[in-house]
């Protein structure tokens, strides 16, 4: 399969850099090879490059710090959203650099990733872990407090059938939020199931990937799709 070959090549290029954890823009490249819809993201080493990329990606854009040492980018105030002009991008770049210097002075910062901005939507989490007994296992939960506080998540072994994916979505307690309540239209559950299935398939076919976290995934209204807004991928040791 062509996608598998490109993913494996991509992974060996990361391994060649002696890294196990992919940067956000790399993780997004990898999942988009696998057909998982994600926001367009490119690495900018300096402010000029950031401005150039923003023009290419089209405004408004999002800037996020790119550093192998920073996992939670908003914790160091390394994320700026809704930037709609060259000036915004320049300011945001300087601000992010200043924040990171202040909050995480020892981090090795490669620059920022310039990303396509997507409007807010219902947020969910799709993840993958390696279980010691069952191997690659896919996790699903509703975003924010639903996962963190309520532990409202469901699991399935990879790979999944479409029925497995739909079942694991409907299993969480917050499921009515996706089907539409109080006048809200239903979310695009089919597109979400597609992402879940693809994560499962990727996990099953590429055992080099031991951990994956698409958090958040924005699920738009029915028929309008779903998109991974942040992605984290960890490779197997060695």
């Amino acid at each position, binding site marked *: 399969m062509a*996608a598998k070959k490109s993913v494996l090549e991509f992974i060996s290029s990361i391994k060649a850099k002696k890294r196990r954890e992919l940067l956000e823009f790399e993780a997004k490249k990898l999942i988009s090879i696998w*057909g*998982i819809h994600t926001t367009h993201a490119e690495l900018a080493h300096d402010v000029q490059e950031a401005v150039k990329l923003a023009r290419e990606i089209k405004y408004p854009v999002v800037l996020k710090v790119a550093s192998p040492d920073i996992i939670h980018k908003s914790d160091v105030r390394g994320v700026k959203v809704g930037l709609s002009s060259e000036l915004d991008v320049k300011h945001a770049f300087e601000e992010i650099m200043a924040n990171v210097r202040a909050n995480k002075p020892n981090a090795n910062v490669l620059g920022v990733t310039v990303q396509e901005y997507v409007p807010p939507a219902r947020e969910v989490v799709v993840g993958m872990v390696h279980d010691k007994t*069952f191997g690659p296992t896919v996790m699903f939960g509703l975003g924010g407090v639903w996962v963190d506080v309520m532990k409202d998540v469901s699991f*399935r072994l990879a790979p*999944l059938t479409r029925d497995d994916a739909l079942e694991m979505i409907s299993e969480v307690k917050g499921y009515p939020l996706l089907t539409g309540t109080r006048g809200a239209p239903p979310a695009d559950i089919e*597109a979400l199931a597609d992402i879940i299935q693809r994560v499962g*398939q990727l996990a099953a076919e590429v055992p080099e990937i031991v951990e994956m976290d698409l958090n958040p995934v924005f699920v*738009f209204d029915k028929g309008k*799709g779903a998109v991974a807004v942040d992605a984290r991928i960890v490779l197997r040791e060695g």
Partner: protein
Amino acid sequence: MFKFFKKKPMRKKPIKPKPIRKRPIKPKVVPKRVAPIRKGYDVKALFEPSGVVIVGASDAKTGTAPALFRSAVDNMSRTYKGKTYIIDLSGKMEGAFKDVKKIREKVELAVLALPQNLVLKNVKKVADAGVRAMVVSPSYGQEQRRELLGAKKQGVRILGPNSTMGVINTRTGLNTSLEREMMPKQGGIAIISQSNSVGAAVLDLACLRGIGISKFVSLGDKIDVDEAELVNYLSNDDDARVICISMGDVRDGRKFVDALRAAAEKKPVVVLRAGIARLEDRIYDAAFKQARAIRVRDVEEMLDVANALAKQPPMAGDKIVIISNAHGPAVLAMDAMHREGLTLAKLDEKTVKGIFQRYPDIDAANPIDLGMEARAKQYELVMKNVLADPNVDGVIVINMLKSSLLDVDDMRAIAEVLKKFKKPVVDVAMGGESYVLVHDVLKDTNVPAYDSPERASRALKALRMYGRVKEKSKAPPVPKVTKKPKAARKR
């Protein structure tokens, strides 16, 4: 694990010329021919051996071994239809041989009801006698397990160690368990239990309730034979209509899930597993769901559900009718049913008319209240009408013997009617003594009887779950995801 299979490291030093022998050359010792390492026999030998040997030491001082030995001998002599040989290493038991070598005929299964040290001493000898499978009752530490595995070199399959409840096959009367007087009657439920005690509890309850068992096996510490292999064997065993598994952790999750999934395609699989408070159990639960196994909460539910699955057809939908001779229990049944995700059926006009024409006093809305004066005749007519209704997927029949004119003899007539229909029916006789009476009449029929609507509803739910498995198997396979999704694009 298999250290003893490893080859010796290559000699690196140059080989020196041997010194000239001074002593006379001894005759060369011809090594005994050892059978080549083979793949291992089928676990079938555990359940359907031709010839069984029970090895024990009647005067052993320690632990449970002598009691186990006597129980196994006693059980086998009473029920087993095949040939049993008894080896008493102490040489005291009447009719027993003292040495395995004395056996001239074919024995495929050996029960090692010996103390720890004697098992290790004799395991090789027993393997050499040509057995294909062994039940090992004492438990062992890691090092000794390795020694035990030596027998595998001859392809012998090992059940246990620490399998004190052993193997039961009700068709042949094979029973190697520690427990006496606990031989369930022949039936369609196969049971795999990792724990000896939970397994014993299941058997005990099955005996009390007269629930038929096809085969039973207690896994113990499973150094060799594991859940996956047994599930696989039982899924191909025509005697087993339902497979029940009481389990803990498995070693190879994927192998287990694959076996479970394949088995569930052929027959219902019921799973009991403790540990719901732990995170890892979430993954087990997911695995059960993906394999379409039916998970239960306790031993009672396991047999309740298995009994229904063994006797009744899978349920094609969620729509239930409640037929009762009392109002209160019917309302409770509605709650119980709703809790399991089942719904009340809306009866066809024809059905309502059919009931009304004959018994205008009966309220033919669902739940159908027959009234306290109802006898077999009323039940018969209503059930015939209801079971022929295309809007009905399953039926809960409630018969209260107390506070009504219904007699236990009416139950026989009711059971006769139910025999003829291909839709799931479960019976509820709420209460204590009256349940025992009703159960006694129904236990040998195809209608499972329960003492509460909760138990009955869970059984129906399981029949529905299996109905869904059947629908899924018919559905076309899910296409692979390879293309880019169309849905997620411009907004």
